[in-house]
């Protein structure tokens, strides 16, 4: 099967800053694909190259097997939902949505009909005559979505589309985007710095760091089997234990990652059960999150492990701050990392 999008050894530098360093990957048709990484990691550069707003210094970009590296954005069958929505302020909502048809020479009545139909898809058909500045953030977002979808693109690119929304709206839009993608069956490529968003929506996630892909995997694999310390720390904020500290704690000189929820916290005088690995430390502080608490335990001069504890009624009370505690985890829950 031909990949919907393929990048081959793509590089892009801005002056002396290498934004993208020989990146290759391919995205299957109909896939929900996330580009995840901190700011400056190259994920947005990658999206801009796919959209055609920028050209790579080296490497090729293919859409459905066709080399589009030198094709301008207006001749590519991809559409973009911009981070700031980029709605045209001098047009009303219907005109904004119909813009893609207008520049292709579709007659006014026909494009209006299809724009209203598209607005129905995002449940905004009553807002056709509004101006963009009369809409809320979530509504603007849906208009931008309808506008990008009206040309029936093979690929929809989304640049941090939920970044400007508040938490509740963000969760609603996540579900809505996911549903829309399943209904339309088109490829979604989604840029985000929010690992929760990437994990909950994407079929596969490419984790970017310093212009390279650290790991490309399904959300579950990324979470349970991070390959590098960066991925372990960035996705789900696992505890990353460096080689030397690991040696002191477990006797094995290999860096590993352990999720906060996989660590059990006990009082220091309770014995370590057979088969478990453990470390002793000082309970530094406890952050109460309602359903769970997060404890920070200093086990070494410069290593603090985070421990997540479910706050059920049965949970034993925590020892006071500053007291000695024992941490315990099953060896199988620790994930060995590639050495840096």
């Amino acid at each position: 099967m031909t990949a919907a999008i393929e990048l081959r050894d793509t590089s892009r530098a801005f002056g002396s800053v290498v934004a993208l360093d020989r990146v290759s990957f391919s995205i299957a048709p109909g896939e929900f694909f996330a580009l995840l990484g901190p700011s400056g990691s190259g994920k947005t550069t990658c999206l801009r190259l796919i959209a055609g707003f920028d050209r790579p210094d080296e490497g090729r970009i293919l859409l459905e097997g066709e080399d589009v590296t030198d094709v301008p954005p207006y001749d590519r069958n991809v559409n973009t939902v911009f981070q700031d929505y980029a709605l045209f302020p001098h047009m009303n909502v219907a005109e904004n949505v119909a813009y893609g048809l207008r520049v292709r020479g579709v007659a006014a009545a026909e494009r209006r009909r299809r724009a209203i139909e598209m607005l129905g898809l995002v449940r905004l058909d009553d807002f056709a005559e509004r101006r963009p500045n009369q809409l809320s953030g979530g509504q603007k977002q849906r208009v931008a979505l309808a506008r990008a979808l009206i040309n029936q693109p093979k690929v929809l690119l989304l640049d941090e589309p939920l970044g400007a929304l508040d938490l509740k709206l963000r969760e609603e839009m996540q579900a809505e985007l996911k549903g829309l993608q399943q209904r339309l069956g088109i490829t979604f490529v989604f840029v985000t710095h929010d690992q929760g968003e990437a994990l909950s929506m994407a079929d596969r996630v490419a984790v970017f760091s310093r212009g390279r892909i650290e790991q490309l995997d399904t959300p579950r694999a990324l979470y349970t089997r991070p390959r590098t310390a960066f991925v372990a720390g960035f996705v789900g904020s696992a505890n990353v234990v460096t080689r030397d500290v690991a040696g002191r704690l477990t006797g094995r000189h290999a860096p590993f990652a352990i999720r906060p929820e996989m660590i059990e916290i006990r009082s220091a005088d309770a014995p370590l059960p057979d088969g478990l690995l453990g470390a002793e430390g000082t309970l530094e502080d406890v952050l109460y999150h309602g359903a769970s608490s997060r404890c920070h335990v200093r086990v070494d001069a410069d290593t603090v492990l985070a421990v997540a504890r479910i706050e059920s009624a049965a949970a034993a009370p925590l020892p006071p701050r500053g007291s000695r505690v024992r941490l315990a985890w099953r060896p199988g829950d620790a994930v060995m990392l590639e050495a840096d």
Partner: protein
Amino acid sequence: MLRAASTFLHGRNAFYVSLLLLPPLLWLGTVYLASLFVLLAQSFYAIDEFTARVVPELTLSTYRQLFTQPANVDIVVRTVLMAIAVTIACGIVAFPVANYMARYAGPKMKAFFYVGVMLPMWTSYLVKVYAWRLMLAKEGIVSWFFGSLGLMPVLDHALSLPVVGGPSLASSYLGMFVVFVYMWLPFMILPLAAALERVPGSLLQASADLGARPGQTFRNVVLPLALPGLAAGSIFTFSLTLGDYIIPSIVGAPGYFIGMMVYQQQGTAGNLPLAAAFSVVPIVLIALYLTLARRLGAFDAL
């Protein structure tokens, strides 16, 4: 003392604002608007032809004089046509410059352009006009330049055109037009660059992304969003050309312009009502232009 004053003003917003606005409002009201009103009122008086005194009785005879004497009508038409031509030319020349300044220039280049655009305004206006007269003269640098490029026939042909041509650039409407465009160009570039700078780059990308070719993006997105700047700039170039009396009296053909007429009527001729009537023409034209621009939606994007 200061503390007591600020404590007193705190929470008395209306009082505070009116205190701040009072001096400028007084200035605007008395010195500017009132004198303008007195001037306009003058245009409804007429001069007694025998005694050459202004008769303080309301009459439309001065306006009748303005609009029925062919010489006066010629002056109005000539001035308005020149103002329209200068405004269009300024818009066409300024757009690429402003667009480059707003969108493509790096910080250094942008500073260079802003200084470069404003630098001519630091020089005396009269010096520039006289310099242009020398440059446009028959043996001046402009005709030398045309000659050394072998383009003399082009210049000769342009000067042989009826109405706009003449014996030399310095004594033709064509030359006057060039000087007007040069003089008012910064007033078009600056508001246009400011308007273009407010257009986010993502809008242009969104347009291209949706399939618009560069020309379509320009027509559908850049131009409509630049209209407020274009309107502001054109009000400058249009009204400055309508009111100017120095350029037409130093460069160009001998025909009169509104500004020269105002100058002459209130000075040597002593016909203040006719001078006032002439100066009402630009005011009415600008008002009409603004109304039209508003109707066309030039300010919708503001």
